[in-house]
């Protein structure tokens, strides 16, 4: 293994720990907004993971995946947030 392989392993490990932390908050809640924020964080972390993968392989076949993941995460978070707002209004 070269130094860069260790670097990639360390980066992957830290990102995985990050996903784990986000999942802890996802389970604990308490608010629905916490969960929305967590899901967005996980989607950003996924994009980061794919970026590391792209670097490790030196090939850009996954870049489209990154863009669509980022797009999906953004639209999903925005929709969920709007939905949470609407529901709060309905309750009043």
């Amino acid at each position, binding site marked *: 293994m070269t130094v860069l392989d260790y670097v990639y392993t360390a980066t992957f490990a830290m990102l995985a720990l990050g996903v784990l932390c986000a999942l802890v908050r996802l389970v604990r809640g308490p608010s629905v907004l916490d969960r929305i924020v967590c899901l967005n964080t996980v989607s950003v972390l996924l994009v980061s993971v794919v970026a590391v993968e792209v670097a490790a392989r030196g090939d*850009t076949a996954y*870049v*489209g995946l990154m*863009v669509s993941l980022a797009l999906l995460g953004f639209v999903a978070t925005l929709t969920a947030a709007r939905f949470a707002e609407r529901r709060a209004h309905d309750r009043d």
Partner: protein
Amino acid sequence: MSAVGDRDHRTTYRRLLGRLPTVVWLTVMWALLWGDLSPGTLLAGAGVASLCYAAARLPHLPVRLRVRPLYVTRLAARIGWDLLWSSLQVAFRILWRPAEVRGAIVAVPMRTDSDLLLAMVTAGLSLVTGSLVIELNREQGVVYVHGIPIDSPRAAQNLRRRVRHTEELFVRAFGTAEDVARFEAAEEEFAELLRASPAPGGGHVGKEGA
């Protein structure tokens, strides 16, 4: 009759011209996404871009900006520095006694009245770690910014000062001559008000407690 037709013709022409930058921009994105610059890609990109633009029926906002490179550089440096420095600050507070972290929402009257500049300022503020625009009162031109970590009224004053500085840089970097003149007039008026009724704590509108 012919004059009317001529005018119609010209507005159509102008509308198309106004849409051109957006279409060019979308085409560039398309080329970036495909990763090549061959004429076929560009043509397909332009086609898809115009089709999407026509289908979305976006409202046409008049974009009136003047770019001043010197201030744009200063603004970029400022935002980059803020992003890094406040990220470090927040990271430090996350590791050191996170349970005691407190925030604040401060009201900052904006001195510019241009929709486009206000949108840019709020986006710039929300991009930086540790500040977040909660609400924008358009009629009075007041933004409500949430900041973190803020432990004292002095830190809140600092946040206020940072918001005002960011606003000034945005206006000077992108505002038209008219925008800058209005900004300076508003600035002058604020200074006048503060001289008339000296407020404690650094002289900004909106104070902590009485």
